């Protein structure tokens, strides 16, 4: 199997009861729940690209789903969307960016997986022209809608290295989880901590 293909295949064990990965994600979820995230929203980000945000967000969503909670996994990495590669392409071409632009509502882009019951709101095609205008009323409407319809909403955000809007996402969403990959650069970590000063709640180390 080629390296590129290997990187697109993300191990999903968060809902498995007897796998080491599944057990570990359940333990992490317990720790997160101890902090009682506000509005039952978790924003996952990282200092650099490829640190494991998507795998962490997906596995936490699966762990929550294993507890019979309804979970919405929202993808906010507009420049490097990956959920479609993990869970398959959505039936609609519209994505979260369309919702934030006010072109459609959240219900129109959410699709549900029959195998694991996850509700997915994917980012749509990759684009780099996302600006701060997304933090307007449509964004607040999306947060309210997600809170109203689902028990938990997990946001798979962009990395601090790739986007300037991470801080805004973190402050708007609430509870922020920073995923740090083992052997990643200390310089990137310090930059992320400076950027998200006061907006980070928890940190996990991803030993990939």
């Amino acid at each position, binding site marked *: 199997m080629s390296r590129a293909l290997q990187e697109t295949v993300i191990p999903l064990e968060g809902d498995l009861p007897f796998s080491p*990965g599944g057990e570990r994600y359940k333990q992490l979820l317990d720790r997160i729940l101890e902090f009682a995230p506000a509005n039952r929203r978790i924003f996952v980000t990282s200092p650099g690209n490829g640190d494991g945000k998507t795998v962490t967000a997906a596995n936490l969503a699966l762990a929550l789903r294993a507890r019979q909670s309804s979970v919405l996994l929202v993808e906010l990495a507009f420049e490097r969307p990956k959920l479609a590669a993990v869970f398959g392409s959505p039936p609609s071409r519209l994505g979260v960016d369309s919702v934030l632009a006010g072109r459609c509502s959240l219900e129109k882009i959410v699709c549900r997986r029959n195998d694991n019951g996850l509700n997915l709101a994917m980012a749509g095609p990759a684009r780099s022209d996302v600006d701060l205008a997304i933090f307007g009323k449509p964004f607040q409407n999306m947060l309210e809608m997600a809170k109203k319809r689902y028990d938990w909403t997990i946001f798979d955000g962009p990395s601090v290295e790739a986007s300037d809007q991470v801080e805004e996402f973190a402050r708007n969403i609430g509870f922020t989880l920073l995923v740090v*990959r083992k*052997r990643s650069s200390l310089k990137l970590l310090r930059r992320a901590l400076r950027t998200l*000063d006061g907006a980070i709640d*928890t*940190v996990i180390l991803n030993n990939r």
Partner: protein
Amino acid sequence: MYPSLTARVLSSLRFRWKLALCGLLLGGTGFFFASRYLARCFQSSVVIGFPVVGGSESKAVLSSVDQGPAVEGLVQRYEPEPVAISHLGTWGRRASLRAQLSFEPIETTVPNSVALRIVAKEKTPEAANALAIAVGQAVLDQAESRLMPTHSPAASTSSAQPAPPPSTSTPSSSPPPAAAPVTAPDPSSPPPLRKTVTWKAAPESAEVAATRRQLRDQLVQEQDRKSRLQDDLAALNAMPKIQVPHPASSPSNEAALKSQLNTANNSLINLENRYTNLHPDVIAAKRRVADLQSALEEAIVKNAAIAKQDAANQSKVAEAQARLTRESTLQRQIAQLDAQIARDTAELDKLGQGKKTWIQVIHYSPAEPPVASQPAGSPRPVPAAAATPAPAPVSSPAPAPRPGAALQPDEQPVTLTATSPVPAMFLAQPVLGALSLLFGLLLAAVMVWLAELLSRSVKDAESLEAELPYGVHYLGEIPRMTP
């Protein structure tokens, strides 16, 4: 700190395997080639032959002359001598010698005899040769004392120093002088034997001898030819010199005179058509024509004389040129012969300086009665007969042994054969390879360790937690999962 660092290095090999591989290859190959360069040395060997006396006694001696006692004997015996080991301390000297020396019993073609080969390695050919012969001498002395307990070196009289090597020998192949003590014999002991030690060059191989003979014949022929050529040249130089005459005066211009005469005749004809013969112009023209005719006749005569002179000179010039050509040819041939003679001489010298074998022959013969007037402990004068040692037939077969008897005078002598040193290595190739691999692994580990020490990355949970500001909680570590 160190165990955790070691564990971190081992765990980081997964990420730094390229660096480790680079260190392994770089360190291994570098060490290998550097060691190969530094381990270059020269190897010299000596072979000691013993007659079989008293059944298996000689073999027992050989088996007892192992590395240790020989080295001990060498250290004790040659410590004050300026041999190659003098710069070492006692322990280090022994260890170094044990690494430099090897002992190997070998098969002999001489019946009823056994032999031991001693191989010594040193950085220079001279040192290797000196070490090999010194060790051989030590072993020889030890074996002598075991074979002939009643004629130990202390009791025997060393009557001769080793003969100086022939004038053709090189310093690297000349044996060192022996330093045997000379003491007065004990009257109560059995009649002492006189020990005669001589060195002789081993006969050359047939191939070398044939080459040397051919070169010598060639040299003689070339010298003869050169002397003949030199005689020819001397004879040529002794011949009277050829006087080449100066070239004659330049020939007169006959053609110009003829054309001037024609012109004068034409003008005379024109004048005669217009005037009478008494006209001054006609008279002048006739005079001019006559002058030109006489000048032309003189020129013709002069040119003929010059041509005759040139013909006579040409043969002398050709003769002189032939002599010059012959002289230069002789000189060139002599120069070529000189070069050829120099090449052949150098080749002959090289043949002489090549691998040469020296044989030390030790004879025992009944000693002369001790001089009563000489004080005990003082050195006894060397007998005159010892200065000319008896020739020893090294390659002749030994006489049949007499079981139980000690070595008797004029029996098959103990021989020590030394050969010129050859290039070798202190360490064998497989040992070098193993050491190189070890060094490569060590370097790889050090490189990974250094890279890990200097790395500015999130190495573990502790380093991550150290960076977190107050209020940010570390939840834990996600294990490695394979998709």
